[in-house]
């Protein structure tokens, strides 16, 4: 069974995001970039399937600039077998990402695509579902646990009310939630080994996909700031304040 894992290079989750003064976007100059945390969970899950003998090959794919190959290297160091970089310097909207992935899936024929439920930069939470729709595949989003059989997958999903378990036929798309696993840190020998693994480079044009943005970003602004608060000395004083504010 072949598993495809799309991974995105995003601003590191610890970085404080700053909006550019001209409101054209957020400032990414000299900012630490990392693999989207949900995609790390996806790589980990795929590698575990391989270690359990259920997956034969794990292919990591990223769409992005030249530096996205570092994100692929991280996946390779975690245990993915080879990489594909679809190189572009422009913003690729979720629908275009899904179209690129569809073209890759048609060429690679994986039985399973595992990816993060959302990327922590645009927070869209769309790509997995869109890819499943374009392929006519079932989806199991927000995965909390995964049990794989030869031709189906049983997935417990994190939903607003708790957990829901569904069974989907393979091939399928699975998107990861936080509790699916705890991703490993790549060991030094594995980082060295990853340097020898191959990364195949393509462009969206090679795949025949139009990635021109369809949404027009008019501006990116700062959210409203909260006024500074105050410290209270006792729970009594706190309740007095809350009562005066009319919230209790």
């Amino acid at each position: 069974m072949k598993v495809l894992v799309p991974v995105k290079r995003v601003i590191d989750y610890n970085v404080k995001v700053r909006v550019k003064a001209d409101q054209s976007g957020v400032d990414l100059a000299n900012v630490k970039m990392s693999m989207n945390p949900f995609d790390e969970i996806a790589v980990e899950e795929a590698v575990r399937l391989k270690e359990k003998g259920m997956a034969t090959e794990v292919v990591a794919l990223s769409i992005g600039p030249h530096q996205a190959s570092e994100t692929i290297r991280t996946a390779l160091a975690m245990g993915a077998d080879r990489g594909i970089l679809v190189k572009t310097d422009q913003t690729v909207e979720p629908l275009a990402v899904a179209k690129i992935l569809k073209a890759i899936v048609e060429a690679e024929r994986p039985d399973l695509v595992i990816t993060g439920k959302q990327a922590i930069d645009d927070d869209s939470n769309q790509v997995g579902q869109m890819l499943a729709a374009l392929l006519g595949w079932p989806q199991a989003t927000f995965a909390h646990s995964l049990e794989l059989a030869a031709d189906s997958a049983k997935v417990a999903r994190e939903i607003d009310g708790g957990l829901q378990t569904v069974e989907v036929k393979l091939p399928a798309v699975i998107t990861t939630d936080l509790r699916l696993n705890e991703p490993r840190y790549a060991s030094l020998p594995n980082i060295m080994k990853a340097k020898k693994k191959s990364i195949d480079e393509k462009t969206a044009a090679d795949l025949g996909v139009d990635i021109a943005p369809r949404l027009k970003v008019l501006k990116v602004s700062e959210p409203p700031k909260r006024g500074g608060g105050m410290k209270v000395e006792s729970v009594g004083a706190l309740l007095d304040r809350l009562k005066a504010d009319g919230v209790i």
Partner: protein
Amino acid sequence: MASLVLAEHDNAMLKDATHKAVTAAAAISTPVHVLVAGENCEAVAQAAAKIAGVEKALHADAPSLARQLAEPMEALILSLAGAYDAILAPATTTGKNILPRVAASLDTPQVSEILKVVSPDTFEHPIYAGNAIETVQAPAGKIIATVRTAAFGAAAEGGGATLEKITAPADPGLSKFIGEALSKSERPELTSARIVISGGRGLGSAENFKLLDSVADKLHAAVGASRAAVDAGYVPNDYQVGQTGKVVAPDLYIAVGISGAIQHLAGMKDSRKIVAINKDADAPIFQVADYGLVGDLFKSLPELDEELAKRGYK
């Protein structure tokens, strides 16, 4: 033309996330229709018909729709899509699961978690955990968007929409429901409660987490948690508030033993009043808190509980 709103419900009760999405829809394209899809959900469809401003409630009832799985729901919405120039769903786990499938099949981009309708094709929505607000204009064609419910008021009750039964297309047969483990609680739901009290890693254990219960009961509050508290198994996943959990904006949010990581703030910083109880005076949560109580929660929480009791909160 018209807009279509996907109703949030559990076959028995219509959730107010629907009413909030209706408010957003009414600002985009009218008349507004609500789609109630499920199994034996007649009562929900009737409730949807009573939302003010709704012209028609569409009721699709079939065993394959009982759990609103994404694949049959996509087929159903696609069968209706031609009549609408906007298709919206509340940004719940159900809406987020289904709507991108519909968007992709219609070759239309989706705008996620709209906060504000600037004009019928232009929306504000959060990116980077709400640290930036993006204003986007959708291309000509259909509008497809999920609605951040915390950002919109609920449409009132008192409408008199027509109720129309519709037939669901055949189930694509790709997925099936196996079971569910839902959290049961007598308390208000996190996303609609007027007061929320959340606990973090500082609570230290599942046992200690129950210290929040008594205060929550007295304030009729919902109970939430940080990711760290969920990961540590103090409470189930559906308690998580934050960038990748639930987004809440109650009148009062009380954060107990929560440091205030950006991912947590993303889910609660639009609350009207924020209280933080934390023993670390430098914890980032105090930067967004209206009232900060610096101290050991194991002392403050019982005190708070007692003081509430003294003041007649039961």
